[in-house]
């Protein structure tokens, strides 16, 4: 901390000297010589300034050596040094070209034209198009090469984000940088508070984040007031929506189930027309509300820019007992202490509460339709093998609450005209608490005996976790243009970060009373032999292994632009992490990039149709270190016992656990990117094309080790031992035109992904294949192997149905197969059908993801819609395969084989066993096109809204996920998983919903 004070002292060295000033005045006219009111006239690098009055005149005192800045929206800014003059009249020129966009990159900003990397920006308006908790949802279909996949439709659930494919077997999520604070998740952020999101994709852009940039970087800038905007602007947005199940799964009705059951076990149902027909989906899924309200004030005083926002997001789930609500308080201030010294803060505080429903989606899918939900007396009826989903809901109480605060305080000093020194201290602190309670209950069989769905002693679980992550960043920037054509932008810095965490979990049983007032742990709930309570062994306490680390980094970047035509960028970061042993602790991440603005060349000036043309290329190395802090350590296992003595007694024991790997080092990704940016017809048509090649080496992967190492069965050790290639082409085309009152735009974007494992195991002497995607019964369905995509599905290939005994004899087959069963292919051609015949049966990674969008504005009416989709990926219908007991079936079972020639795709019905061996029977096409959002709004004409003292009043209706074209039979073809080895497996997650909402937006 002493170091911080030292820095603050440094800033005070440059204070503004006071010298003699003269009074200046003048008149400002437009290009038709008409006086221009409202032009800002300011002394550069000070707060002294004024505006022109209705006659276009101004007066201002300044030094003869000061630079005056004349600016107005839509006009070209001019800078003039008064010298000996006291009257300065100006003719402003209308700005004809689109202003060069400024893009936020790591530790600075850059003009879009000076950018050599691949960076995509998304603005607030786009983020707000979808009614969603998570800002990252707004990226889906908006940014090429970015995939955002919901993992669940449960209120409060996050989304898996993938930038340019899956580059590692570990956590493949990008990092988020919110106002300079590096974070792993942004669930605390309200989309309305965001000014812009930039996705950094190639090495030139991400290398400044070195060890953490390999999976992409998403930089989020939250809103702040603008200097000069002295009138506070209030913004109120209120939105209300209704969610409902987007699609039901086609399951057998009661009658159909009875028919099939009779075929499996003759005589199961005497009269199939008299069995009940319970639609469990209708019983469990309801419609639910979603509210999103937001008030913010933004503006600036002479010295202070501010943004204050408060938001409330309240979402009920379409399954009872699931909901999420969050309040966000946002406070962004910049204090311009002197023209050369700024202090500021960006703070968000977000408390939330959440209730989670048990996973009834799975039991709804499985529950037999021939069973009634309730007995005549209104009590829950038994649902064999699955449990009654309604009882499951009724007896579940799972609450979470917590608070997260993220923010930073910064100081920025400018000196010697071109230098800026900035220090920023940020924290991300969170505290979470969970309480879950289940009363003692029993669901009875019809004969009055207890069914398996019972809980003999009531259960209470209390858990807490906390995390503190601080980040201190210091940068020195230098920005200067020499001789009008050489512009140089340098930044160098030093950063430190530390993350700590702790969790504590205490389970108890046999709680005094069921009511919520009694949900507190008492010693007798943990240990009470008289009532058979002993949960002492289950108390847990420790650090969250992924959130316990420290880092030190050195950063450097140089950007040089020659005459706005030739640009070069060099980036370098050196990172040190506590996750690695001393010898491997530090690593360097360099990148180089070149750009050429061909459009600015003289020979292109005559080509009127082309308004912009730029090519750029980059190469660099970036890293990833998202592993647990103790992977390098060989730890002592002390949770084992020996049984010795007469009588037999447990004796404590301890020994070496699985081997550690002290040689662990950074995972590194080498990425090459070549891009072209074009604009035609005065940038009405804009296009951006990128080709990238990403090779990740030394992937930190947990591998099975040889048995002789003594790690025990199924234990895996982390190694740097895999390589993965991601290669693709991305394009983004936008047409935007204004004709009178009519403005319209059309956008189209797409990216291809080629994902391939290049190596696993290497020369480490350990496993060369990587199995994952474990189903509920422990059977794996993915196998990542060299030459295949990460997490490729594997299982048996099917080739029709054995029609009769003759066919059965003619092919190698399992002893369990009979006529009417699936014919698995003898892939090895060894005449034996066994585990070795399991093979690659599909990829969970799409080959092409795309989006297109359109918008129309006419007078006050606006209309927009967004489609997105993907092709080339497969989904493994995991929920259908795990069948230890008789469950309901999907509708396709009804077209079953019933004798020779009846079906060659749908086997004879069975409640489980052979035909439910993981095979391509359960592989489905995951392609889809989805209408992601559609909105229609009306903005009141300004003269009307101004009568009500409002600047703007807009009312709108919108819909999210309104329809999806897909052949997949589950709730949604967007199946996300944080675990890249379990990607694209439908385990029966909480379904995604469709949302219809109405809203109003006021500004005054």
């Amino acid at each position: 901390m002493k170091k911080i004070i030292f820095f603050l002292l440094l800033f005070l060295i440059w204070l503004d000297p006071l010298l003699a000033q003269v009074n200046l005045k003048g008149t400002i006219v437009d290009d038709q010589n008409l006086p221009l009111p409202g032009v800002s006239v300011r002394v550069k690098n000070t707060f002294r300034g004024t505006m022109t009055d209705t006659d276009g005149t101004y007066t201002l005192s300044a030094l003869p050596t000061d630079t005056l800045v004349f600016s107005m929206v839509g006009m070209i800014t001019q800078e003039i040094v008064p010298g000996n003059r006291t009257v300065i009249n100006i003719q402003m020129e209308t700005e004809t070209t689109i202003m060069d966009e400024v893009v936020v990159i790591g530790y600075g900003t850059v003009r879009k034209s000076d950018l050599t990397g691949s960076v995509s920006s998304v603005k607030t308006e786009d983020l707000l198009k979808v009614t969603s908790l998570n800002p990252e949802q707004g990226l889906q279909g908006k940014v090429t090469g970015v995939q955002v996949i919901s993992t669940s439709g449960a209120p409060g659930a996050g989304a898996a984000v993938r930038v340019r494919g899956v580059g590692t077997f570990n956590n493949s999520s990008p990092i988020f940088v919110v106002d300079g604070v590096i974070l792993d998740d942004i669930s605390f952020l309200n989309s309305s508070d965001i000014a812009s999101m930039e996705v950094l994709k190639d090495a030139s852009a991400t290398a400044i984040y070195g060890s953490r940039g390999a999976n992409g970087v998403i930089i989020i800038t939250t809103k702040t007031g603008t200097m000069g905007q002295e009138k506070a602007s209030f913004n109120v947005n209120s939105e209300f929506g209704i969610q409902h199940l987007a699609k039901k799964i086609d399951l057998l009705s009661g009658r159909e189930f009875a028919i099939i059951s009779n075929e499996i076990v003759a005589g199961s149902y005497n009269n199939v027309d008299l069995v009940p027909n319970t639609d469990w989906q209708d019983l469990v899924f309801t419609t639910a509300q979603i509210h999103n309200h937001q008030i913010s004030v933004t503006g600036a005083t002479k010295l202070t820019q501010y943004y204050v926002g408060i938001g409330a997001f309240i979402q009920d789930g379409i399954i009872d007992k699931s909901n999420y609500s969050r309040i966000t308080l946002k406070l962004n201030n910049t204090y311009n202490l002197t023209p050369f010294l700024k202090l500021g803060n960006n703070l968000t505080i977000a408390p939330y509460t959440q209730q989670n429903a048990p996973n009834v989606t799975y039991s709804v899918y499985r529950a037999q339709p021939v069973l009634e939900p309730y007995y005549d007396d209104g009590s829950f009826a038994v649902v064999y093998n699955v449990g009654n989903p309604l009882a499951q809901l009724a007896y579940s109480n799972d609450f979470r609450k917590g608070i997260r605060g993220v923010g930073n305080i910064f100081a920025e000093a400018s000196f010697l005209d071109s230098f800026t020194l900035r220090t920023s201290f940020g924290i991300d602190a969170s505290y979470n608490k969970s309480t879950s309670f289940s009363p003692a209950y029993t669901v009875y069989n019809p004969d009055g005996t207890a069914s398996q769905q019972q809980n003999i002693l009531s259960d209470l679980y209390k858990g807490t976790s906390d995390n503190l992550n601080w980040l201190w960043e210091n940068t020195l920037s230098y920005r200067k243009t020499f001789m009008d054509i050489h512009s140089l932008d340098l930044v160098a810095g030093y950063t430190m970060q530390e993350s700590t965490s702790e969790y504590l979990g205490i389970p108890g049983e046999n709680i005094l009373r069921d009511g919520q007032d009694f949900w507190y742990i008492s010693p007798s709930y943990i240990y009470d032999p008289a009532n058979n309570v002993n949960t002492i062994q289950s108390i847990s306490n420790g650090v969250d292994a992924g959130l316990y680390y420290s880092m030190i980094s050195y950063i450097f970047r140089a950007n040089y632009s020659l005459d706005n035509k030739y640009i070069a960028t060099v980036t370098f970061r050196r990172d040190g992490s506590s996750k690695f042993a001393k010898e491997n602790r530090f690593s360097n991440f360099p990148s180089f990039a070149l750009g050429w603005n061909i459009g600015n060349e003289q020979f292109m000036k005559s080509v009127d149709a082309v308004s912009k043309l730029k090519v750029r290329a980059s190469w660099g190395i970036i890293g990833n270190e998202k592993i647990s802090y103790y992977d390098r350590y060989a730890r002592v296992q002390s949770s084992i016992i020996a049984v010795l003595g007469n009588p037999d007694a447990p004796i404590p024991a301890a020994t070496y656990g699985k081997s550690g790997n002290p040689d662990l080092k950074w995972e590194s990704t080498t990425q090459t990117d070549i891009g072209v940016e074009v604009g035609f017809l005065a940038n009405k048509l804009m296009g951006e094309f990128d080709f990238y090649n990403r090779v990740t080496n030394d992937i930190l992967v947990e591998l099975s080790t040889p048995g002789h190492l003594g790690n025990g069965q199924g234990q895996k050790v982390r190694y740097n031992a895999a390589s993965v290639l991601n290669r693709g082409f991305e394009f983004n085309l936008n047409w935007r035109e204004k004709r009178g009152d009519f403005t319209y735009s059309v956008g189209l974007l797409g990216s291809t992904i080629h994902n391939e494992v290049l190596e696993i195991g290497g020369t480490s002497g350990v496993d060369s294949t990587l199995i994952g995607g474990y189903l509920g019964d422990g059977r794996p369905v993915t196998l990542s192997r060299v030459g295949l995509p990460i997490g490729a599905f594997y299982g048996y290939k099917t080739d029709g149905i054995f029609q009769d005994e003759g066919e059965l004899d003619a092919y190698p087959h399992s002893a369990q197969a009979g006529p009417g069963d699936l014919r698995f292919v003898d892939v090895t051609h060894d005449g034996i059908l066994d585990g070795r015949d399991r093979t690659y049966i599909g990829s969970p990674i799409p080959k092409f993801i795309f989006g297109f969008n359109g918008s129309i504005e006419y007078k006050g009416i606006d209309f927009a819609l967004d489609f997105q989709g993907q092709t080339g990926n497969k989904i493994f219908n995991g929920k259908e395969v795990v069948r230890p007991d008789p469950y309901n079936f999907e509708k396709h079972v009804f077209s079953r084989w019933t004798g020779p020639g009846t079906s060659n795709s749908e086997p004879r019905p069975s409640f489980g066993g052979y035909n439910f061996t993981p095979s391509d029977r359960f592989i489905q096409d995951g392609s889809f096109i989805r209408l992601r959002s559609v909105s229609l709004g009306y903005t009141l004409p300004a003269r009307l809204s101004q009568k009500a003292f409002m600047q703007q009043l807009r009312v709108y209706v919108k819909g999210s996920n309104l329809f999806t074209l897909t052949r997949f039979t589950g709730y949604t073809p967007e199946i996300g998983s944080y675990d890249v080895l379990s990607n694209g497996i439908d385990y029966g997650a909480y379904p995604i919903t469709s949302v219809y909402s109405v809203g109003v937006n006021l500004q005054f």
Partner: protein
Amino acid sequence: MKTKISISIILMAFLLITAGCEDFLQKDPQGELTQEAFPVTASDALLATNAVYSTIRNWAYHSGGYPIMDIMSDDAHKGSNPNDQLPTIGPYDKFTHTTTQDGLDRWWSSLYEGIKRANVVIEMVPSINMSTDLRNRCIAEASFLRGLYYFDLVRAFGGVPKVTITTPPTKVPRSTAGEIYDLIISDLEYAITNLPEKSAYGPDDAGRATKGAAKSLLAKVYLFRKDFINAEKYALEVIISDEYDLEPVFADANGKLGEHGVESVFEVGAMEVDGAGGNQYANTQGVRGSPNRGWGFNRPSLDLRYSFETGDPRLDATIIDLGETLDGILILGDGTTPDETLDGDQNVIEVECYNQKIWYPGNNTTTQWGHNRRLIRYADVLLMAAEALNENDDPDGALLYLNEVRRRARQGNNSILPDITETSKGPLRDIIIEERRHELALEGHRFWDLVRTDRAATVLGPLGFVTGKHELFPIPQNEIDISQGSLEQNPNW
């Protein structure tokens, strides 16, 4: 000038904050020890030694997982109901198991896990400052157990990677079987020198390795090596030590009443807990259905049933039949399992019955976990002595110990199981092996006895045994795959 000063101050600041980063980047494990810090005290040494014993209750090691070796002999079938684990355990019954057969990799890795735990003691404990006697005992206990684990490995797989340190390289080629046996023998010799006799332990240490256990195991190792001189030497040393005797009641030799009793040479302590502390070995084989004691694997064969001499009371103490009452509990068996299994010609080939050697009083699954498996019992030592003496041309000595076993078996009924008087080597050898079958049935010896005495081809051939292949198990395929060429498969697999 002022500028230059400012810049140099900034540079100094950067130098200042970059110092001392090594400490900042050191994050030690929280709430856990690393291996560098263990074992360092006398109590650590005991903890580490105890951990080596933990492995013998590991389901995957203890043949409680698969393969249960008796299923591969003429004494037992897969058991349970017909389809239960048919593709996983079924093949062991018919010698159609493959290199990827379920259970092989678990067995292999669990044995090496035990070896690693032993290596922790053998490598680290010598440098701990503690009482010499205790230190040597700890190392000797670990050596005994390492020998035991390697003995399982070498019998099952032949020459295997020889690992005697805690952190071996990832690639270790197979040693020869001879080299592994040499290691086992030297481990057991060390154990014999440094372990106390059974009687020297207090009741709290019952179950730890003893001098007698090490000698018995070494005698067995020499039988496998066909070194009958040494087998005789060590078996006789155990007998004359006067530490052991036969239980008066045959059933107690494996039953609850005989736990840590006079016949027990080395046994696996277990508590009546279905989890840590219990041993699932017995639960895996326990009566299926009513009472619900387990899964019912390792079903005694008709061949075993009919092999007993007329009136041998050991038959009843070996097989639980339906309708039998044990400890007051009526055995009804499993509803989904047919009481009789027929072949195509309507001959009965199996009947529903269960292994009584693992019976433990109780009527639920949890209590069944409390069975203490006897890895070595005194009757086995007597029969090893008899076998070795016969091979060393001392039939009278052999008959002495053989008849001691038969005497206990007849339980005072002199009309059955007469003393053996045969003295010619070949026939007596057959009689001793047959006596082993009856005395030690379903205790995991039969398959190995048939293989080591070269009888497997004759006896097991009709069941699918292929000479030159099935004497050894295949090295688990995934170990071969992982080894990247450093492990070679056994012949004919």
